[in-house]
């Protein structure tokens, strides 16, 4: 039906719906001839999508918005007709930092306010002793990881730009950097948190879903101009990734999905680690402690696949809060228009109604108001708003 498509991805579990759509044949059944191209950096995925070497890509949701706003690099309008995953990240800390936080904690260990306040005491003590600041690794300046880390620590009184050091690290380097002490902690997607725990060099402090109940993580991204020229292809992509997401969410299919994803040319790690991620059943400590959550990673369930403009607005609000973007109604409009529930609804022939009652569900601050970002941000003390 169409010419061959080239789609870029980064080897992470939240590319599951895309990889399964292709390798399980759902895309072919929609008449699509897709070649998946594994990439090594988000910058490469972004640039190859922007200049047309890729027709579509597994992309960080904030990068799709930044690209459409022209933040940090070339401005290319991108649209996201399908959301590949909600949540899925975790904060992993070194055993030493974990012990320091637990020694200071006043509250439950999975309560993000309690850990953030404990972190602020650890950070203050470090500063007093004249030691190097606590260093956190994250994947990209425009990433949910960056915003989740910042949101969490700022709620406990830690200024992410003043009190600690936040550095970008490619996901495959995270575990080694934690082991060598180059970073004390990181926020990254699966499978890297589990790999740090399995290697005995890290302890999962939080699932990102402790911080935000519902956060758009990766999207299926296409150039806006391309989507306008190829509406049928976009619809077929939505249908095939939707079917793959439904397939992955059925517990009886998890083992097969994990095997597909584990292939060396796909994610290339043990199927067992991938299945733990899909099941939301993670080993969080080298001592074998397990933690389960039905919110760890959502691939399709609870309407996860439907792009939600409120999510886009929240991500834009974080760009404003941390000085990456200026605040303007036009920019907010552009950001929201990146997420296209209309394309999703049309492709799947459904009514067009969001399925989630609370779009964000942050653990601190007032409920998010997409229509009053300035008012919403005023509730947060720490930030780096542009004048």
């Amino acid at each position: 039906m169409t010419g061959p498509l080239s789609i870029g991805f980064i080897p992470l579990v939240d590319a599951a719906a895309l990889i399964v759509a292709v390798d399980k044949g759902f895309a072919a059944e929609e008449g699509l001839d897709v070649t998946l191209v594994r990439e090594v950096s988000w910058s490469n995925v972004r640039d190859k999508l922007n200049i047309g070497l890729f027709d579509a890509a597994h992309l960080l949701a904030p990068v799709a918005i930044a690209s459409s706003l022209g933040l940090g690099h070339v401005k290319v309008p991108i649209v996201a007709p399908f959301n590949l995953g909600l949540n899925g990240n975790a904060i992993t800390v070194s055993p030493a930092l974990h012990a320091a936080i637990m020694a200071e904690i006043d509250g439950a260990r999975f309560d993000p306010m309690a850990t953030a306040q404990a972190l602020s005491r650890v950070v203050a003590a470090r500063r007093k002793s004249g030691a190097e600041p606590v260093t956190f690794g994250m994947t990209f300046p425009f990433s949910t990881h960056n915003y989740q880390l910042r949101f969490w620590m700022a709620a406990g009184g830690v200024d992410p730009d003043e009190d600690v050091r936040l550095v970008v690290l490619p996901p495959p380097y995270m575990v080694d950097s934690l082991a060598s002490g180059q970073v004390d902690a990181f926020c990254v997607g699966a499978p890297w948190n589990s790999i740090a725990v399995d290697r005995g060099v890290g302890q999962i402090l939080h699932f990102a879903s402790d911080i935000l109940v519902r956060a758009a993580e990766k999207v299926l991204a296409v150039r806006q101009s391309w989507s306008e020229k190829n509406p049928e292809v976009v619809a077929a992509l939505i249908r095939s990734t939707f079917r793959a997401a439904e397939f992955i969410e059925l517990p009886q299919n998890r083992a097969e999905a994990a095997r597909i994803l584990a292939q060396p040319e796909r994610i290339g790690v043990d199927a067992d680690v991938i299945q733990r991620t899909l099941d939301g059943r993670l080993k969080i400590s080298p001592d074998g402690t397990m933690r389960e959550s039905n919110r760890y990673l959502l691939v399709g369930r609870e309407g996860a696949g439907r792009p939600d403009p409120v999510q886009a607005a929240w991500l834009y609000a974080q760009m404003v809060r941390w000085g990456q973007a200026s605040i303007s109604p036009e920019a907010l409009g552009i950001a929201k228009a990146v997420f296209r529930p209309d394309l999703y609804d049309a492709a799947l022939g459904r009514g067009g109604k969001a399925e989630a009652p609370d779009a964000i569900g942050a653990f601190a601050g007032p409920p998010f108001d997409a229509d009053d970002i300035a008012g919403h941000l005023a509730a947060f003390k720490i930030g780096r708003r542009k004048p």
Partner: protein
Amino acid sequence: MGAEPSPKIVIVDESPIRAAILEEGLREAGFTGVVHISEMQNLLARIYALDPDVILIDLENPSRDILEQMFQVSRAVRRPIAMFVDQSDAASIQASVDAGVSAYIVDGLKKERIKPILDLCISRFNAFSKLQDELERAKSALEDRKVIDRAKGILMKRKGLTEDEAYVLLRSTAMREKKKISEIAQSILTASELLK
């Protein structure tokens, strides 16, 4: 180069040969301040220590994302990157991605001084890929020759042929079957292995 000092250029590349090819090209063109970083640990700290005007990085390098944080204006970033190649010039972005290289220009360097660096970088990266292809071809030619020699040996022994006769037999069979001589030779090796 005029009166302006040569901009300081950092090459981030784990391939020492490619980095050397690029470095040599830049020096020949009069860019004297070229430094190669091959070690990715603490990359940002290394770059800050050198304080370059231009950073060139190969696209196979996952550390490229580390450079992207230099676009941010924050305390952690000393001199922000002004642009990624030339934002107004889609063709040069295309050419550099095709060649497999990316250029980051640190704030302050004049636009007209960037183009010759980028053009040179693209042509040297392309030259390197060509060199690699040639090397691959030479390697497989050598492999072919080994297979043909072994097949000739088998024919000489089994059919009592001279070396020349064995080669003529291989060649005529290849022509008749519209295959490469090396393919016929490979099937002789396989067959003789099976019939052992």
